[in-house]
């Protein structure tokens, strides 16, 4: 009941890169989610989006607005990650030149996602794909507008 949206992404579709993050951000703004939470989610959603576009054949990004947190969940089918410990180190990247030429592939994506998350989980199987879940906590004063409506 807290699922706010699910978006499909295709690998190598850099033309629309950022669109999903932008929709998530606008949706959270409309729900009155605090700015500091939205700022973090925007970075997490963007990096997740770029990772799927850069490395997967296809994938989905879902986002949830819970009473105490916003959750970004991503699942893709693609090359997966051989060594997650390495991939989480800043500067480590397997990006090819075409990705680097656009200013991506600096090895900052996953480290940024972890850095801006309050809770972070990643599971990957080489040759199959990657699952990622990131949560950002809301401050105690926030109540989702839907909840307010439900209680009215």
């Amino acid at each position: 009941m807290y699922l706010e949206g699910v978006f499909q992404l295709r690998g190598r579709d850099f033309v629309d890169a950022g669109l999903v993050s932008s929709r998530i951000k606008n949706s959270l703004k409309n729900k009155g989610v605090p700015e500091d939470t939205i700022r973090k989610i925007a970075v997490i959603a963007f990096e997740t989006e770029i990772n799927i576009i850069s490395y997967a054949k296809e994938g989905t990004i879902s986002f949830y607005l819970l009473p105490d947190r916003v959750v970004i969940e991503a699942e893709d089918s693609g090359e997966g990650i051989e060594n997650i410990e390495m991939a989480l180190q800043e500067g480590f990247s397997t990006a090819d030149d075409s990705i680097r030429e656009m200013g991506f592939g600096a090895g900052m994506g996953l480290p940024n996602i972890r850095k801006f998350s309050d809770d972070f989980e990643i599971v990957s199987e080489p040759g199959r794909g990657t699952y990622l879940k990131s949560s950002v906590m809301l401050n105690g004063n926030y109540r989702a507008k839907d909840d307010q409506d439900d209680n009215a």
Partner: protein
Amino acid sequence: MTTLETIVETLGLKCKCCWEKLKTEVKGGYAGDLLSDVMANSKEHDVWVTRQVHQNIVAVASLKEHAGIIIVQGAQPDSDTLAKAQKEGIPVIVTELSEFEVVGRIYKLLHEQD
């Protein structure tokens, strides 16, 4: 208050898109060509100085709510970049000046106001 217009006029830059947004206030700046770095470290109302020209810079500037993008060293934005910038309402400004000079002069302008 420093606006994009002040920066464009003082440094002699050329606006390629979204002239109507030049009155936007610039509160700070960020320089960089790595999009993840800019995503993580820049702030709202920053002017972003870069050498990147492809359309993903507009997505970053829009998500981060930058005041505008300045493309340096004579590089020209792709036509897709300008079309997207127009749609998102992100001013794109170009200059022959180097990144070093642009950043230095904007920094001075912003801090003269203090």
